[in-house]
């Protein structure tokens, strides 16, 4: 069910995006409609990792750890999408592939946080230990994201660049805004769908490990 939703959502995104009005930036501006929702869901994913990590340390329910793991993996994929669609948008609009500004830098480090989290999980074999360590990293990482954002933002406002793109300017024409909101909704659904499947995989893996341990 959820899986069908996924497929549907994915195609929905494609279909809708071709209808809204073009901007003065040309067709490339439409990247906005996947890039921004993806970014939102990526940060949501990490927020969930942080939340589940904290809850896990408090409640010791292994399912929370598995959910965090699922969210982290999905989050990595989403962040990767943000980091690749970003430059594809930036190159035609700004003229450069990259800039050290707030959003890009925060997202880049979000990516590192995700990768670090997942790498750590690969390196620890005992499930309980792994859960604990991951939770620690998850919580600390979640706290870090606002700080990175703040630091880079402060840095930028001291040395303003002449070209600052504001992807979410307040005066978006109605049709664009609705498409964007739709994008948010769809990516959120996508995120949830992928996490649920991934979580299911995690549970199955746990089950499998338990049986192997019991058999040996």
């Amino acid at each position, binding site marked *: 069910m959820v*899986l069908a939703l*996924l*497929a549907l959502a*994915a195609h929905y995104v*494609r279909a809708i*995006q071709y209808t809204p009005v*073009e*901007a*003065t*930036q*040309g*067709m*490339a*501006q*439409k*990247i906005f409609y*996947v*890039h921004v929702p*993806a970014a939102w869901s990526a940060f949501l994913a990490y927020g969930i990792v942080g939340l589940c990590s904290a809850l896990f340390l408090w409640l010791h329910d292994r399912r929370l750890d598995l959910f965090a793991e699922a969210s982290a993996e999905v989050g990595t*994929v989403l962040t*990767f*999408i943000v980091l*690749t*669609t970003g430059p*594809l*948008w930036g*190159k*035609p609009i700004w003229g450069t592939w990259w800039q050290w500004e707030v959003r890009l830098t925060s997202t880049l480090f979000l990516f590192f946080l995700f990768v670090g989290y997942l790498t750590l999980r690969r390196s620890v074999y005992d499930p309980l230990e792994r859960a604990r360590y991951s939770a620690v990293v998850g919580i600390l990482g979640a706290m870090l994201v606002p700080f990175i954002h703040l630091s880079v933002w402060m840095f930028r406002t001291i040395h303003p660049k002449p070209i600052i793109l504001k992807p979410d300017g307040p005066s978006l024409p109605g049709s664009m805004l609705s498409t964007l909101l739709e994008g948010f909704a769809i990516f959120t659904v*996508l995120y949830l769908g*992928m996490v649920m*499947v*991934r979580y*299911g*995989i995690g549970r*199955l*893996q746990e*089950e*499998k490990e338990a*049986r192997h341990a019991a058999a040996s």
Partner: protein
Amino acid sequence: MLLRAEPPANGQYMVAAYVLVAVVLVLYVTTLFVRARGLVKEVVE
């Protein structure tokens, strides 16, 4: 902002981005399915 008669012709970037997103997502979801199916078989024996 210059007033242009027509928006710049940079559609190829958009296409690239959309294709990329679609490919990445489809690939990832496919791997999820494959893994899930493999595990279900193993556990339900």
